[in-house]
């Protein structure tokens, strides 16, 4: 029977024959992930379950990225719990300090996730690896604790919504705009319990970083996974990251989809998610002019080198508006070094930006960019829930890196094309 991408990837890691959505299958896991917020709870559950060792010290990934560099004593204590556990279990891929970065940017870059993998993580944005053709999904700490002990878990095979993107990408349009468009269309619960599968000529032409940006926000539509076929571009990316064994994977022709959507991107404007939900999406023209206090460029959605290059192209020789705080956080140490080599960091600093260390900090209102009441931010992050980045009386707008840089320069939400024409 022809299989969707979700079914096909799961089939590779289960003994059972997958017959269709709704079936519950026991699945061997390629890897298991937790971070400094979710690992302490997972460790608590792991020990309470009576587990004494992880299923494979090479396949448990622990990344300290949310409250790091540690913002206070409590967070330092939490990270210490994770560090001690990593040492005790002999976890090979424990990341802290200068080796650490935003987990979902870091693990792909290190070649630790790739096509055909089945990954669970105690972080909802684990779905990012779908950009590489991995069935990757977020779970809670206790599910992840069991997965760390057993190396397996159960999944209900999801029905799939296929989203096909056609047409020609206009100048200034980026991957973020496509995923925001989709979430705006189907809503924050539109894909609950379901897989999203992305294809079409626009996706085929898109680079792997863009695909990860899109997969990252599958959860913002409630999705279990956001999947892309692994093609030559994926294999080039994963090989460069040190993963030699990657093979292509795609849905079978004739696979059955619950729903098929087609989006023609020709003539599309950059998209903005307005407060307070990721599905409150409007074209930039409709919100242009909204004055913001802060712009944040970073996170597991848009903190990669392609995002920084896009922002730098606009910020070069220009300055962030007076009174606006521009915060730029390269997502990993490698991205940071690359940005340094290319002169991007200097461009950012000349523009008046604070260039911070790799961290999830501001995205979740953790630290390094918290908002006061009445303030507005435009961020390249993935969530704009009420109070997400600080005060309950603050507002978060979401957009891609180009709009973020343009907005920083203008001091108000602005189309990048408006900046390009200016000196």
């Amino acid at each position, binding site marked *: 029977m022809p299989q969707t991408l979700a079914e096909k990837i799961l089939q590779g890691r289960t003994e059972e024959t997958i017959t269709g959505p709704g079936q519950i299958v026991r699945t061997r896991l390629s890897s298991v992930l937790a971070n400094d*917020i*979710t690992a*302490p*709870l997972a460790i*608590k*559950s792991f020990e*309470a*379950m*009576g587990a004494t060792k992880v299923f494979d010290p090479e396949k448990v990934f622990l990344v300290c990225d*949310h*409250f790091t560099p540690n913002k*206070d004593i*409590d*967070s330092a*204590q*939490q990270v210490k719990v994770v560090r001690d556990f990593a040492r005790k279990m002999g976890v090979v891929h424990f990341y802290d300090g200068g080796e650490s970065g935003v987990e979902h940017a870091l693990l792909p870059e290190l070649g630790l996730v790739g096509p055909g993998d089945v990954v669970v*993580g*105690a*972080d*909802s944005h*684990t779905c990012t690896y779908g950009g590489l053709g991995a069935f990757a999904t*977020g*779970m*809670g*700490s*206790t*599910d992840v*604790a*069991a997965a760390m002990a057993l190396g397996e878990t159960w999944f209900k095979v999801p029905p799939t919504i296929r989203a096909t993107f056609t047409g020609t990408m206009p100048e200034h349009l980026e991957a973020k705009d496509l995923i925001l468009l989709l979430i705006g269309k189907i809503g*924050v*619960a539109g894909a*609950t*319990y379901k897989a999203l599968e992305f294809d079409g000529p626009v996706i085929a032409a898109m680079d792997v970083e863009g695909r990860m940006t899109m997969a990252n926000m599958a*959860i913002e539509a*409630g999705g*279990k996974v956001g999947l892309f076929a692994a093609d030559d571009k994926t294999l080039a990316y994963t090989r460069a990251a040190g993963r030699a064994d990657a093979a292509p994977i795609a849905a079978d022709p004739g696979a059955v989809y619950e729903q098929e959507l087609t989006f023609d991107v020709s003539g599309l404007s950059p998209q903005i998610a307005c407060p307070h*939900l990721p599905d409150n999406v409007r074209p930039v023209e409709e919100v242009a002019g909204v004055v913001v206090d802060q712009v944040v460029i970073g996170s597991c959605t848009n903190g990669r080198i392609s995002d920084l290059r896009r922002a730098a192209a606009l910020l070069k020789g220009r300055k962030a508006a007076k009174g606006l705080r521009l915060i730029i956080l390269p997502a990993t140490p490698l991205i940071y070094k690359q940005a340094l080599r290319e002169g991007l960091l200097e461009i950012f600093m000349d523009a008046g930006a604070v260039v911070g260390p790799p961290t999830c900090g501001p995205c*979740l*209102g*953790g630290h390094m960019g918290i908002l006061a009441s009445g303030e507005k931010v435009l961020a390249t992050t993935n*969530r704009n*829930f*009420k*109070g*997400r980045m600080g005060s*309950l009386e603050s507002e978060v707008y979401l957009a891609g890196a180009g709009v973020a840089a343009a907005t920083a320069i203008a001091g108000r939400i602005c189309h990048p094309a408006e900046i390009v024409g200016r000196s």
Partner: protein
Amino acid sequence: MSYTGAARKVGTNIDTDAIIPARFLVTTDPLELGRNCFEGLEPGWINRVQKGDILVAGPNFGCGSSREHAPIAILGAGMPVVLAHSFARIFYRNGFNMGLTLLEIGDAADTINEGDRLEVDPEKGLIRNLTQNTDIPCTPVPPFMREILAQGGLVGYVRRQMTEG
């Protein structure tokens, strides 16, 4: 096991940041998390809750983060049951794993008023609104998930399986 308590209502698309904002995630202590439950919705919201109250929510309850601190905070605040129009996926699994009883009741969530006395029977799949004298039928919690709840969550369930197996 059935539960009786007063309904405490929240709205649509209540996300995990509303249930427990990130600034409180520097602890895993249920009581500490419970004290700050729904601080992201309305400061001091939790002060109106009595132990044993039943949370009633609209569609997509628990969307957002994978943080297990969210169901722990609800339990820590003394609310053992959530009735929602519908739940977000990760939260649904986390709820049972933490020992929080969850029932999906669709549009019937709208018929319950703040403060209504409710009697919830997860095994029968029946909610009695004692204030309005009405019955709300729903899908019962399946036996193996009730077993997880009876053990206080997945940890107790796994430990019991291991000692018995």
